[in-house]
């Protein structure tokens, strides 16, 4: 289905245009300065290809980014845009979203920008549920600074700053987002245009903060980081596609399923070795994030085996910015501010 059929509470107050838009309308005259072959190109194309379907007025769209290769994104979008500073895009975008319900606000960030220096702003944006769509380009590396490991790099990663291999345990962006009370969390892949677009659609529709982790390839400093999930030969067996209302089932022959074991934990099992009733039927709208969290834990950090993609969680919760506006509006309805009265205050005296 397309955005226009889908109810879009996240865009309820953003003015639409009647003019027909195409991807071209969102391209700028700036030459794109990513390395040839960078996964960012595919994401840019997908976003530019998807936006026309929303039919929003271009001037009511804002892209805000931090610093990093991925954060150059706004320069290539013919909308309003801010290329801010490292890690702070969610904070800046929060100020925009709170004050301007008529804008569709997108944040573009990287695994370092969002999860290293920007971690605090990210988790607080998710907690508050500010109406932002956050696209996290995860290439498991610091690209712009020429290849140091990032918080999503697998332990043991050899990089410029870790010649003998990195030692820290990596973040799972979906897990931490769920732990931070996110109302919408998804994961998709740069090279899967269809899945990426579908995911953007769901994110755009959502009211509140939508975090979309996009597995992106940095062919210069971390080439093939996600290959097992992309390679036609392996992806079916490695990748779990979450689909609402369907059993969590994958594998070339759809013979692998995710079940809830006796101990209460989730496990991947051989479909015909388990009782149907134990197979998890996926529901991104479940109030309890427990199951989504458990699904995010299946992925193997190194082999990438059993990595789930799709919308993990998509629940309705009033966005922070709406609550702010409603609180202010409520007060103003009751009584508009009177500056003269404010300045006078209660106890005054007059000298004549």
């Amino acid at each position, binding site marked *: 289905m397309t955005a226009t059929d889908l109810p879009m509470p996240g865009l309820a107050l953003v003015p639409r245009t009647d003019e027909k838009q195409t991807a071209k309308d969102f391209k700028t005259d700036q030459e794109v300065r990513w390395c040839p072959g960078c996964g960012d190109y595919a994401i840019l194309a997908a976003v530019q290809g998807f936006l026309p379907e929303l039919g929003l007025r271009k001037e009511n769209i804002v892209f805000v980014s931090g610093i990093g290769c991925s954060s150059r994104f706004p*320069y290539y979008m013919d909308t309003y845009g801010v290329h801010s500073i490292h890690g*702070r895009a969610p904070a800046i975008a929060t100020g925009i979203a709170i004050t301007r319900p008529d804008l569709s606000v997108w944040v573009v960030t990287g695994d370092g920008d969002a999860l290293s220096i920007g971690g605090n702003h990210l988790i607080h944006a998710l907690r508050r549920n500010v109406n932002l769509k956050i696209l996290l380009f995860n290439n498991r590396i610091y690209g712009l600074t020429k290849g140091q490991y990032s918080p999503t790099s697998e332990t043991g990663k050899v990089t410029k700053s870790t010649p003998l291999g990195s030692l820290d345990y990596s973040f799972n962006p979906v897990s931490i987002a769920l732990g931070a009370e996110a109302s919408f969390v998804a994961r998709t892949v740069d090279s899967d245009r269809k899945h990426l677009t579908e995911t953007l659609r769901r994110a755009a529709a959502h009211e509140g903060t939508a975090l979309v982790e996009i597995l992106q390839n940095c062919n210069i400093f971390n080439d093939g980081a996600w290959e097992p999930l992309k390679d036609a030969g392996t992806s079916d067996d490695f990748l779990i596609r979450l689909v609402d209302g369907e059993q969590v089932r994958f594998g070339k022959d759809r013979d692998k399923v995710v079940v809830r074991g006796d101990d209460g934990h989730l496990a991947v099992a051989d479909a015909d070795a388990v009782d149907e009733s134990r197979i998890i039927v996926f529901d991104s709208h479940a109030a309890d994030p427990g199951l989504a969290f458990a699904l995010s834990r299946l992925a193997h950090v190194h082999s990438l085996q059993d990595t789930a993609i799709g919308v993990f969680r998509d629940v309705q919760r009033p966005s922070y910015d709406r609550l702010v506006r409603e609180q202010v509006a409520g007060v103003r309805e009751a009584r508009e501010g009177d500056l003269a009265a404010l300045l006078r205050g209660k106890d005054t005296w007059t000298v004549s």
Partner: protein
Amino acid sequence: MLGGQWSRPVAPVDEEVKVSTQTKSVVPLGRVVIRFAGDSGDGMQLTGDRFTSETAGLGNDLSTLPDFPAEIRAPAGTLAGVSAFQLQFADHDIMTPGDRPDVLVAMNPAALKANIGDLRAGCDLIINTDEFTKRNLEKVGFTSNPLEDGSLDAFAVHDMALTSMTVEALSGFDISKKDAERAKNMFALGLLCWLYSRPTEGTIDYLEAKFSKKPEILAANIAAFEAGWSYGETTEAFSVRYEVKPAPMKSGTYRNITGNPALAYGLIAASQQSGLPLFLGSYPITPASDILHELSKHKNFGVITFQAEDEIAGIGAALGASYAGSLGVTTTSGPGVALKSETIGLAVSLELPLIIVDVQRGGPSTGLPTKTEQADLLQAMFGRNGEAPVPIVAPRSPGDCFDAAVEAARIAVTYRTPVFLLSDGYLANGSEPWQIPELDSLPEIDPNFATGPNREDGSFWPYLRDEETLARPWAIPGTPGLEHRIGGLEKAEGSGNISYDPDNHDRMVRLRQAKVDAIARSIPPLEVEDPSDDARVLVLGWGSTYGPIGAACRNVRSQGLPVAQAHLRHLNPFPANTGEILRQYDRVIIPEMNLGQLALLIRGKFLVDAIGYNTVRGLPFTSEELSTTITDVIGSL
């Protein structure tokens, strides 16, 4: 006979001054400095506030100085727990809360110990003897009881069992002993209101509002207050009472105001004048938090207050709001400014309006959170990477925080630039009578949003500058046809596209500086106050030292010595005539509550051999120390 029939005193401002009909003789005074001191739990701040309101209502000029510990409630009876409130009120205009109290109200030994050093011989000491137990005395290191060992002989001691008298006065009420004892500050307040012939209606009204839901407590507090009043009236403890006539003031309507609310009101006024919704992104920090608290009460002006996860998010959100067309403001104190440095640099590069309020406190690091200081000036000037000039405005008094805030907003919006507003702990919590401004006296502030293309070819360049102000166009999202991208990388002059061109960078660095320098054209010249007009010494100040410096200059002049005073409200850029003025004097003295920060800027820019007078004690200057310094310098000529 306590709690007996009660004749409520009438305010002197009333037609015929009835006070004189009272049984005790009334001595007129020109000015009085009172300091209330007690435990954090004794409600001294409230007592001071109430006395201040009554005094303001009487039309005296006044100035106050609260002084409390960083802990919420340090252990009872300890020096660390002492909380004090000082005010000076007079029948003429005054500029400071006074150097040394004429009257000290000491609710316990700690309060006496902590303040006795500031007392001059002969001053009145009102002491609550109930608290002078052996244990309490030991707690603060009194080896003997000062009430008995003669160590207070130099003072006029009025010792009284404040607590027990209060409890006795409230014996008739059905309240806990604790509540009864708590009311002792009302007893003290009543006594001082009697002593200085303050009206009482205000306090009664205040109590009625405060305890409307607790009638017993209300009645008890009123009774305690009145008991204190009649204690003065009926006992022999005080032979005379005093009165301080109203001070002649410019005609107009006045109120008493502290700096933080005044600053908050200024921001709201600027929002109204500019038509820009006010957005505050802030993270709580002493002594700035009250601005956040105040603004959060005024949603009816469309004000949005956002308590962020940290200082960086606070300013980030404010900058985002500015980008989107609001008046973005962030409030903090020194440590918070340090954290905001990088984002302030971004604001300089994006050239967007933004107000950064720094209510300075004692530093470095966490320092002295509840004390005042002026040591963030150079941080405001230079605390960012690269050449990143930011205008700086500093208020001179609590009431002036209002005007300074409006001025900061005018500069920010007109010149599309972040602006520092440097208040401090003394301005934030101190108060003074404030003439309520006429709305039509407020400056217009024109956001002048870009609405269309700014080039022949119908295109829009976000860095094409206004020739007069050098400000760039402010095109907010939602404006059709003006879609553009801006960021922290160096931008090509005009187009704003990323540019690594060496000459362009040099040009942009100079343009950003030139824009800030150009602000000087829009600000009033530096004014000098020199009645004699033949002073050879100029005292140059900035910020909250205005009062003490002014008072000191008066003292010096009253000794027949000419001295000139000038006070900078704009610290970046300086008023255009600053250098010219400085060169007119043989000596320039710059008193600062830091180690000489303005002095460095003045010397570096104007090569004037300015002398700094610097103490960094977390307290405002006394006019006494400044007078001495000035006199010495004049003498040295």
